[in-house]
């Protein structure tokens, strides 16, 4: 099972959202990391067949996904960034509706709905209207609907948005459980969401994949470039103006800074082991500055 992107490009007028992307997805969890506007959602929409590439192709097992049509959509599970629902529907009814659209026979749909609502912790509120749900509950329902057809390709666009820390952990465990023998692509700009579960991390910027690899491989690329320094406020201000600050913490009269830069930023600076978050902030420092 292989999903291949060949020179995939998507333009909106003059703006290039996804720029000549070449990559292959195989079984496993892929975490797409990138700032807003990096092209993550566009890429996911193209993978789901909602958007067609301006140029290039997307192939599933060497077959063009556009020509596969229904056959391809049967393999898909998708949670959009702005997950929609019919407010007056009950959770169970909504799941059955999506199951019908996915072509799951009623008996199987009922069984699968029950299983999935239990899995995402919504079985107690299965008969409650969705409009009464909290953001996190709606998101969990979204995750459940995406998994209804036991998809071979599971695409989750910002699945942890609106989830509290406990729900996030639950989600991570859930994805880890279902990830075997399928392609899971999830986008986020919350590093910890993918750090523990993704087999491969893809860093996206300006419609391109700027880095790809396992957490260890990616983190290795900035080894020796992350520093920690405890200094007074005056020097801290100077360092803040000069370098990219990953983290800043006040401790009484002193300031602890975590800095990403190629050389030693200060005499007292100590090199530290970089994390994925350091890498993210290092790679996207220009973007964050603009923001």
């Amino acid at each position: 099972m292989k999903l291949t992107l060949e020179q995939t490009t998507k333009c909106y007028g003059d703006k290039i959202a996804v720029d000549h992307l070449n990559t292959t997805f195989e079984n496993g969890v892929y975490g797409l990391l990138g700032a807003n506007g990096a092209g993550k959602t566009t890429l996911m929409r193209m993978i789901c067949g909602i958007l067609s590439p301006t140029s290039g192709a997307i192939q599933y097992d060497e077959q063009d996904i556009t020509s596969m049509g229904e056959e391809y959509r049967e393999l898909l599970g998708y949670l959009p960034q702005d997950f929609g629902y019919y407010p007056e529907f009950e959770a169970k009814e909504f799941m059955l509706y999506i199951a019908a659209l996915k072509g799951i026979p009623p008996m199987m749909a009922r069984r699968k709905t029950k299983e999935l609502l239990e899995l995402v912790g919504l079985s107690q509120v299965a008969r409650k209207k969705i409009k009464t749900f909290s953001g996190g509950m709606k998101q969990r329902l979204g995750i459940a609907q995406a998994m209804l057809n036991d998809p071979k390709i599971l695409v989750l666009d910002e699945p942890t948005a609106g989830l509290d820390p406990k729900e996030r952990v639950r989600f991570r465990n859930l994805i880890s459980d279902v990830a075997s023998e399928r392609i899971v692509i999830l986008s986020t700009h919350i590093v910890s969401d993918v750090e523990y579960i993704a087999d491969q991390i893809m860093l996206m910027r300006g419609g391109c994949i700027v880095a790809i690899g396992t957490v260890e491989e990616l983190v290795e690329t900035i080894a020796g470039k992350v520093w920690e320094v405890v200094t007074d406020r005056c020097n801290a201000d100077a360092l803040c103006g000069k370098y990219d600050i990953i983290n800043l913490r006040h401790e009484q009269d002193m300031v602890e800074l975590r800095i990403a830069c190629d050389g030693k930023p200060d005499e007292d600076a100590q090199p530290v082991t970089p994390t994925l978050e350091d890498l993210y902030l290092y790679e996207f420092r220009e973007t964050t500055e603009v923001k």
Partner: protein
Amino acid sequence: MKKEWKMYPGRIPEPDMAKKEQARQKILCEMQQYRMTDIQFICGQIRFVRPYLWVVQMLFWLLVSAGMYRLQSDGMQEYRLYSLIAMVTPVLFVFQIEQFAKIYQQSMLEIELTTRFSLKKLLLARLLIFGTVDLFALAGWIAFWHVGTESDLWRITLYSLVPFNLMVAGLFVLLRFEYSGHYSYIAISYMAVLGGLFDVLARWRPGIYGTENEIWWFAVLLVTLLLGIWSVSVLLKCSMEKGVQNEINFGTNNEMLWR
């Protein structure tokens, strides 16, 4: 016990891979048998139409019929009855359009575009369900006035079908250009304008409902029929995956996804 336990791996035979594959093929084959067909999909969609819709429609139908029948019994002029039929007919069917338009709910569209049954099939299923119900309701409505008032069947059919077709065509066209998410209000406004038009027509030219103008009504009926067919075909064409794919706006969810 520990010794016995250690001996187990040796006793368990290796799985027969050929049989495993055979079982997998059998499961796949059985799953194909349980695959939902297009007919099952269409029938299945009935479950997701709100039941109150049918009840409200029926109650409204009864209420309007009773009211109009009373007026007619009190000696209402024939042209007035016909104009009322023309005014009221679209109202009887407007309840369903909101359920139909729901398919285009901005945030749901992305999911509906990625499911096995395409948006076009979903539209077709809903069109078939509501169309069938409308057909029976319209037939009942026409039969009621024909039998109840002994009016001319042909003329009642004309004065019912023309506004009905205009309503269908208009609402489907409006559906294509609706971005606000307040489609129900737009539909009701359009219906009010349409009803008002037939009322103004009756007050301005009462003779328009006369037998001498039947031929004109028939001509309009043909035009509106064509309009209705055109609006449905355009709606279906636009819902095809190819047509929809590039119409998704970039970045923001505040804009209508489908046009």
